[in-house]
């Protein structure tokens, strides 16, 4: 709690400096959150190039509008609000294009199979079981694609980022109750799609 409060005080000083046009202060703020932002964008978009676009657009937007930051929420919530909005736009655009990201595009333009990212650290893992895990990983990725952008975002923030529903509500400009209902719908859909699948342990 103490470290959180200290972070907040430090953030406030940096934000005020950034509002006065101090780019270095803004960059220090960026350093505190950019890795998490990039990780979120990468997982949601599945493409390094798209994740980098979201990352850059988010922080440039934050820099341009930091004068409007009124300290009504934490900087973390504020920047995540910007990022989630950009990611939602991205997911909506992708949904209309009906892309099937069975592969991810890396920065060199090459494609990597999503399943290759599913690690298998067990010693002596047998190929049959490994293949099954990869198939399941693929099914999960496809099931996530079936969620609406908002359901996907709430599920991502809750399941993968571990945020509280109240915080998710704040980030998405909605109530905790709505976030809860959206999460409920998302998990129901995922369970429906993945019901036939057997968990590999």
């Amino acid at each position, binding site marked *: 709690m103490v470290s959180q409060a200290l972070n907040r005080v430090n953030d406030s000083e940096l934000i005020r400096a950034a509002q006065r046009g101090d780019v270095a202060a803004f960059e220090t703020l960026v350093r505190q959150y950019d890795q998490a932002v990039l*990780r979120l964008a990468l997982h949601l978009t599945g493409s390094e190039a798209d994740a980098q676009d979201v990352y850059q657009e988010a922080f440039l937007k934050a820099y*341009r509008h930091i004068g*409007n930051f009124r300290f009504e929420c934490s900087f973390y919530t504020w920047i995540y609000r910007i990022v989630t909005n950009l990611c939602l736009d991205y997911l909506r655009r992708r949904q209309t294009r009906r892309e099937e990201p069975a592969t991810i595009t890396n*920065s060199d333009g090459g494609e990597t199979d999503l399943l290759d990212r*599913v690690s298998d650290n067990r010693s002596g893992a047998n190929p049959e079981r490994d293949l099954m895990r990869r198939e399941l990983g693929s099914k999960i990725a496809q099931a996530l694609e079936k969620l609406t952008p908002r359901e996907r975002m709430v599920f991502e923030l*809750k399941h993968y980022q571990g945020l509280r529903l109240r915080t998710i509500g704040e980030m998405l400009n909605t109530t905790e109750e709505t976030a809860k209902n959206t999460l409920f719908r998302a998990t129901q859909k995922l369970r429906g799609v993945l019901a036939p699948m057997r*968990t590999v342990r």
Partner: protein
Amino acid sequence: MNCEWVKENIVLCIYDELADDAKFEFEQHVRHCLPCRQELESALELKHSMGLHPVQEVSPGFLTESRMKLQEALEHTEQSRGWGRWIFDFSAWLHQIRLAPALAMALLMTGFAGGILTSYRMRPQNIAMVPAGAEEASIADVQSIVADPGSSRISITYNTLKPQMAEGPSSDPKIRQLLLLAARDPQNSGVRLDAFNLLTQKPQNDEVREALIYAVRYDRNPGVRLRALEGLKGFVRDDIHVRDAVLEALLHDTNAGVRQEAISLLDPVKADMSVREALRVLAGHDQNKFIRSESKRVLASTPHLE
């Protein structure tokens, strides 16, 4: 509590969002209700399965590349100065006055002082009613000529450029400001070098450090960039902006001497992941043989990190 309520709240339970009392009742119910227990197990199984689509950690190289691109973009971006920012927020002003009278007074005084200074600078000093001083100062340019048709009187508006000299110790703020100005003189690299030779005696000053970073990134003269790099030597360990500037010089500077100096500056922070990533790239692909071998040497000096 009934089964319907339990089913609606299973998701909150598995993500630890239920209040303590509700969680207790939930657990009590599930312990004695087989369908609800199966429902819970199914939800837990789903949660476990989602681990097969894990969140990938961002690689240091990708992070560094993204940061550099952002830094470049920030240099060409200005903060929004829309009308909204100029609308006077009376309640906020009142709040601030109440909480910080000294700050409010300081702001008012700064406003007055700024106003006086601005009007002083903008006063049309270059309009001479009598051409007596024209030969005393060199004329920079003539702005306008107006001849009075009814008489032989001519009005000429011109600007003058008058060399001036300032003297004082290096601690004098005015001298430091002039040195900082000289450090960005676009015409004369000798002046810039002289300025940095003096400024680097006190690089702990933020403005000086900023000028040094600027020179490392943008100065056209490699000698000046090299001098600026030397001036930043003591700050690579503690100042992340300095480290980034040196890293950029190492990766992108066109001069091998500057890059060589950058490698030696980064030696104390060779454990930094971004630095190691950059060194790995250079060790493998750099066109300059010396840079390749130096990068390999620095990496090899810490085998436990490889």
